[in-house]
């Protein structure tokens, strides 16, 4: 069985996996990082979005072996101690989450947008979030949160 090594939230992690082990499964089941959620099996819902080498990726559509040697950031790696990342803070301030299940993927996706576009328009945010489904919020407050979070990030994560 293949061995993979990757830097997860700043720490080097190694594990033995099957070829078919998905990155999402490796994070959740091997590393116990259950903040990354799995909501579908067709790469649509986006609850599983993490950053692989700085880009947002659906970890349910990525093999753990494909991420061998990569730098992974998950929702657990954003806050600095008790200080939330500005995007997390913006989601809290703008009530951009309800049940919380889509939230990790939403936040990780939003940070990727903010890294590319520091002051995104409402239209830009709505288009960017095509790969993230939320059933609770109607997206209204998520859009506000992403805009505010991007501005608070000031052009970088």
């Amino acid at each position, binding site marked *: 069985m293949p061995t993979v090594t990757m830097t997860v939230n700043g720490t080097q992690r190694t594990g033995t996996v099957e*070829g*078919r082990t998905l990155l999402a499964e490796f994070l959740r089941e091997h590393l116990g990082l259950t903040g990354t959620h799995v909501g579908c099996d067709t790469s649509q819902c986006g609850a599983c979005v993490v950053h692989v080498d700085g880009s947002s990726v659906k970890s349910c559509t990525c*093999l753990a072996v494909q991420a*061998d040697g990569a730098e992974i950031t998950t929702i657990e790696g954003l806050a600095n101690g008790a200080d939330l990342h500005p995007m997390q803070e913006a989601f809290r301030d703008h009530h951009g989450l309800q049940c919380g299940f889509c939230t990790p993927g939403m936040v990780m996706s939003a940070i990727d947008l903010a890294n590319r576009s520091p002051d995104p328009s409402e239209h830009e945010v709505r288009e960017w979030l095509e790969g993230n489904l939320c059933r609770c919020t109607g997206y209204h407050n998520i859009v506000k949160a992403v805009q505010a979070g991007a501005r608070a990030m000031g052009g970088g994560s």
Partner: protein
Amino acid sequence: MQDFNYHAPKSMDEALAALRGAEGAKLIAGGHSLLPVMKLNLAMPTDLVSLAGVPGLAEIADDGDSVTVGAMCTHAQVAASGVVQGRIPALAAMAEGIGDAQVRNAGTIGGSVAHNDPAADYPAACVALAATIVTDRREIAADDFFQGLFATALAEDEVITAVRFPAPDRAAYAKFANPASKYAVAGVMVAAGADGVRVAVTGASGDGVFRVAEMEAVLAGSFSAEAVAGIAVSSDGMLSDGAAGAEYRAHLVAVMAKRAVEACG
């Protein structure tokens, strides 16, 4: 998903050797076409050979009158490329409209072209722009490459290394997306350049990408939206599903063609 042996070759030779080494071996690039079908057990390869470690496949080169896009370039990379935006803005815009942001970050041009999903966008761009598919051993014209539903001219052990797009005088892509999957229901790329006017359609036909000769002929005479607007497309052979029946698809092809011509400016 059925388990498999995973290979991470560091050179094209190693990749080819791994591909030839097992009967059920398949290449994996970004995995965004392959992994979803493997999850459903619709594909059960014994071996997966990743191209990620093979050097030189993820570059975009400005050849002056054409742009060569490495097979491992992601859709996001193509969309953001200054070279592509400068030489073939329609291609950059098309790449920006593929799937969603995360799909664009991982999915590759090589994977999309090799998979030849009838609803994928790249086949329309390749055919309309008269692209050349470059493999480890030869070059194949897009017109000859796409051979119907999920079928291509590739040999079992052949690897796409790049796609070369001649820069057109003008081109645009208009897509009507399936509201659920966001795949093309009717995607039309119109291009005018050294190869004349080419109109290529994806998403609509069960046979995959196709050209619309009647539109091409009319546009060659008068490149205007009005000229193409009157041309009806037959619904024969069109895909039909809950989101779009054959007649509606045929209608959308005509509308998207008109809008693509309009967008050419």
